[in-house]
């Protein structure tokens, strides 16, 4: 019930301070050359994956729905924002022929990003409707189909490049930009989850019939979960397109959606902390194997090609799931993300 707003609580300030500290550390290591630009790029991608995983967790982990077409929403966000910045406004991060930052360009970018999120949210709203009638596997198939439809549509619109993809997207996303937006997204979803509305989402996961019978409007909340989850996925897609400078239909395939799903499950259904850790861990694992495998091969005097990367990666995933059925975090959260009033969860003297 009545809860302090997270923004002004002590824990929140600590959480933000800790996150900013890590950002400064990364910036410092990058400036001194300890972290190469390659490492920073992996951190960028990890942060985007954090938004994707946490927003999918809202739908799958907290509300108990089963969506596996999350990259479809990201595609909508990516193409929408990139169309605005690249094809319509034609803005660049720097003023032409100078090194000056193009402030107007960044404003257009932020607005484009938001527009991408809003359009994705609109699609999420529509996808929410089947969730009213379908559950589990059947809902999964619908969302899977949706993801593929979106991809195919972009594949066939010549205006956005069709199968060539949308090229030459200006590089607006940088570490600080991505970091700030990721932080805001995590805080927004965390605040939602611990609010009264978050309780409604959880109650749907726990027992949909019972929550309906105590007066929760399950229809509205399920659609809300899809809409908000899709909004943040759209934002993540937009960030990613302006980081990689390309939006290509194959980027948003089934495989990437599954990867995000694995992050949610490996981190723990209904744990924001888990999603954050898993997004970083799996992104770094996937990239790390690129150098680790050939290195291992050299040690054993055999040649281990890059084609083995996905085999080992999948194997490691199986091992994670087998030996940690509670996965990384289970349903727990790190203390900084839990409101102080919630500490004695449901305890009543």
């Amino acid at each position: 019930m009545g809860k302090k707003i997270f923004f002004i609580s002590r824990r929140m300030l600590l959480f933000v301070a800790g996150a900013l500290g890590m950002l400064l550390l990364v910036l410092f290591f990058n400036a001194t050359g300890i972290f190469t630009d390659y490492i920073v790029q992996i951190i960028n991608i990890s942060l985007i994956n954090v938004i994707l995983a946490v927003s999918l967790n809202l739908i799958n982990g907290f509300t108990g729905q089963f969506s596996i077409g999350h990259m479809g929403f990201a595609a909508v966000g990516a193409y929408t924002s990139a169309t605005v910045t690249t094809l319509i406004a034609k803005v660049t991060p720097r003023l032409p022929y100078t090194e000056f930052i193009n402030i107007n360009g960044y404003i257009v970018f932020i607005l484009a990003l938001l527009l991408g999120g809003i359009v994705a949210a609109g699609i999420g709203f529509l996808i929410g409707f089947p969730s009213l009638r379908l559950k589990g596997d059947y809902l999964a198939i619908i969302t899977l189909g949706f993801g593929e439809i979106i991809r195919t549509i972009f594949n066939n619109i010549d205006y956005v490049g069709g199968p060539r993809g949308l090229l030459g997207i200006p590089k607006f996303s940088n570490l600080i930009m991505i970091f700030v937006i990721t932080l805001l997204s995590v805080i927004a979803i965390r605040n939602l989850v611990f609010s009264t509305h978050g309780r409604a989402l959880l109650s749907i996961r726990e027992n949909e019939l019972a929550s309906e019978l105590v007066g929760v409007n399950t229809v509205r909340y399920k659609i809300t979960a899809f809409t908000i989850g899709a909004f943040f996925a759209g934002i993540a897609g937009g960030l990613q397109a302006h980081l990689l400078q390309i939006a290509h239909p194959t980027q948003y395939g089934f495989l990437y959606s599954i990867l995000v799903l694995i992050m949610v499950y490996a981190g723990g259904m209904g744990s924001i902390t888990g999603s954050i850790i898993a997004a970083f861990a799996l992104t770094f694992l996937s990239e790390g194997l690129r150098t680790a495998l050939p290195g291992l091969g050299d040690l054993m005097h055999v040649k281990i090609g890059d084609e083995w990367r996905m085999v080992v990666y999948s194997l490691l995933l199986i091992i994670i799931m087998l030996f940690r059925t509670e996965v990384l975090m289970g349903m727990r959260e790190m203390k900084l993300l839990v409101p102080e009033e919630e500490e004695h969860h449901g305890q009543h003297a």
Partner: protein
Amino acid sequence: MLVVENLQVSYGQIKALKGISFEVPQNKIVTLIGSNGAGKSTTLRSISGLIKSQAGSIKFNGKEIRNLPAHELVKLGMNHVPEGRKIFATLTVYENLEMAAWTVKNKKLFKERVDEVFELFPRLKERRNQLGGTLSGGEQQMLAVGRAIVTGGNFILFDEPSMGLSPLLVDEIFATIIKIRERGATILLVEQNAKQALEISDYAYVLEVGTIPFHGPACDIAANPKVKEAYLGI
């Protein structure tokens, strides 16, 4: 208080309720008895808005409520204690009650009602910090009833409250239903345990494959030779 007329519900091609009519007067306990598949739960579920009905009318305090969504009906004072209890297994007893207060915005009222529940079921008070899923069947049923009290509502639908409980607990649950009625609530009870249900009820309807062949004051129904043979096993 509740007047149902010619209610028809179908599951696809199958007609579960073929136009039944009954009423539940203010502050009375009315029971629907019948064998498996007679349509008892279907009747309750269509009244509380969990499933859609195809035809007929359901008037609640004079207002037509047929096919209103369940969460709207809760606000109107309709309260459904579902079959199989359906408590939130991973929430504590106290959290279950908090969740039940979803439509209760007044904190003082919530506290009062929780105290009332704990007075009625001291066992729940002892176990207020225990997870719902770890309670015994009887305690879960108490919690389900307690949840209905917290939600408020002066009209309570009970779907098989005695299911899976030992005879002693069944007595306790039925005693609670009488207490709830004394507090001013109106009750529509659905039971397989016809004998005990008839004992605490004022009026009874016998449901048989989607129709109501008999109805009358509970004592008359209990004395009806056909009912005796079919449902009471005497």
